[in-house]
């Protein structure tokens, strides 16, 4: 064995133990009828679990909810984040203060954010609902129609600052001179934004979307803390579905299969986005 291989070996072993083995083991589980309540009766079922999951209305509903959540939350965060970043960049005073304040929501653990909003938005006790009621607006934030939307809003509250900070850093790293050239060329603010700022910022936007989308796919805490997937199954997300199947009903085989299907969906998304980044950065390597 060569020295370079021997040097990598310890890390390779550690990584295998903590990553490769669990992944391989859960894949093995996904091919078996593996229930925590019947560990003496683990049977090989092949891809039966996958077939069951793929046709299970509960899983399809959870996948639909999750995709709605990801698209809704990430889109809102993107638009708000970009807008706020552009406004903040123009701010001369208090910029650093606002920047550090923006970090605050990200410091809070999501389960606490979930609990906080559960009380804030509660239709009987919630302070937000109370003041909305004062001006004649009554909203059932966690009713069947709005529950998923409310969860999206909570995610937007917590993670828009992340987008703002990413875009602010991106905007500040852009060269100044094309913007001066655009002023000389007589471009309006909107034309400059659309044709100069946005294309130059595209790599940063793609990375921000990938990071936030990956994270949003794993949404669990808000659902767990507030709705437990309800009302009915209106807010049941993939992670909550997996949690239910594995740790409430102890059907580890199905949970593992669902997890692998989530990985497949995320993989497709990431590959598509990375390809989009590559095509947008081609041809500007020297700039």
């Amino acid at each position, binding site marked *: 064995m060569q020295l370079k291989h021997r040097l990598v070996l310890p890390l390779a072993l550690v990584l295998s133990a903590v990553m490769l083995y669990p992944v391989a083991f859960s894949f093995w589980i996904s091919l078996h009828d593996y229930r925590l309540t019947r560990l003496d009766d683990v049977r090989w079922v092949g891809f039966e679990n996958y077939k069951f999951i793929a046709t299970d209305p509960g899983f399809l509903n959870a996948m639909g909810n999750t995709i709605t959540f990801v698209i809704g939350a990430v889109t809102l965060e993107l638009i708000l984040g970009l807008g706020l970043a552009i406004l903040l960049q123009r701010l001369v005073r208090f910029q650093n203060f606002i920047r550090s304040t923006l970090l605050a929501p990200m410091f809070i653990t999501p389960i606490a954010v979930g609990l906080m909003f559960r009380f804030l938005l509660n239709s009987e006790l919630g302070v937000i609902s109370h003041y909305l009621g004062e001006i004649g607006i009554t909203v059932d934030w966690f009713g069947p129609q709005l529950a998923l939307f409310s969860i999206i809003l909570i995610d937007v509250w917590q993670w828009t600052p992340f987008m703002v900070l990413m875009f602010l850093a991106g905007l500040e790293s852009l*060269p100044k*001179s*094309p913007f*001066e*050239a*655009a*002023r*000389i*060329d*007589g*471009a*309006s603010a909107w*034309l400059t934004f659309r*044709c*100069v700022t946005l*294309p*130059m910022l*595209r790599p940063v936007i793609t990375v921000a979307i990938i990071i936030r989308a990956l994270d949003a796919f794993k949404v669990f805490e808000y659902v767990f803390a507030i709705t437990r997937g309800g009302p009915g199954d209106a807010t049941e997300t993939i992670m909550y579905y997996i949690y239910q199947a594995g740790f409430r009903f102890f059907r580890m085989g199905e949970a593992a299969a669902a997890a692998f299907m989530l990985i497949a969906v995320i993989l497709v998304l990431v590959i598509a986005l990375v390809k989009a980044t590559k095509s*947008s950065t081609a*041809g*500007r*390597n*020297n*700039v």
Partner: protein
Amino acid sequence: MSYVSLQSITKKFGDVEILKGVDLEIEHHQFTVLLGPSGCGKSTTLRLVAGLEPVSGGKIFIDERDVTDLEPRERDIAMVFQNYALYPTMTVEQNMSFGLKAQNMPASDIRTAVHNAAELLGITPLLARKPGELSGGQQQRVAIGRAIVRQPKLFLFDEPLSNLDAKLRVETRSEILSLHQRLGATTIYVTHDQEEAMTMADKIVIMNQGQIEQQGTPEDVFFRPVSRMVAGFIGSPVMNFFNGVGTANGAIETQVGTFEGFPQIRAGQKVEVGVRPDDLIPAEKGETTITGKVLLSELLGVRAIIHLKTQHGLAFKAVVDHEIYRDMKSADEASFTVRDGRLHVFDSESGKRI
């Protein structure tokens, strides 16, 4: 009123005064070069004319219109930046079209204008490429193309050649000049390179510490520099300076000899005598001479620079022809006399020409 007029322009950044009252008149079709050392305010002046920075005081007129408080786009100008400032995500064609698109010109007219400009600059084959795929020289051509396609009233160039290599710089220099003549444009050009200024300008404006030190034709500033600063800044190799004192009979005594015929100089007045290395010619017997020990010589081709040191330890340079260089480089000492009427005298205190 002139075509472009700057009246008592001042500019402050915080407490720092960058421009301390600049007055400048530029005629139609004139090629004006703003020249000066780093930090003299020449680029700031250009940015004020462009409207990229607001003035702190004074007025700017372009074609008899007060543009002091107007946005850049309302001033009808085009600017070429030192680092090209192309839009990195657009193709060359889109880069050149952008300004016309912003003016809502019909697409077919834009196409014609862009293709004509590209033809003029020889960049038609590059139209579909992006700036990142072009060399520095090509990018600069695109930047110039973007400027001329809009047919503005005034062209502004901010050190456009300083990122190019020496050969390309000379080529692009003459191209900009011929373009200027062909378009009948009015141009303000900023540079710190005096050779560029001398070769290109109809009018050179030399700036120093936020003020105009001298303005005039290249001949004016080269042959009649108004101050010690201008004399030392213009010309390569730089002018030789020797300290001297006026005597009662209108002569100047220096460590390298006595120069006569300056009746305007008071006795005891401290002065600096300047003479260009090109104006030192090998001395005949009986003339006022500057003699020095030959330290080293640099052959440039037809001409050569001789580095010398006087017996008092003052270093000076002389530019001589090739034949003289051959004799001189092996000689121990060499004597020079000053070409008639080419001695410049400056007051030591004020630095002004006497």
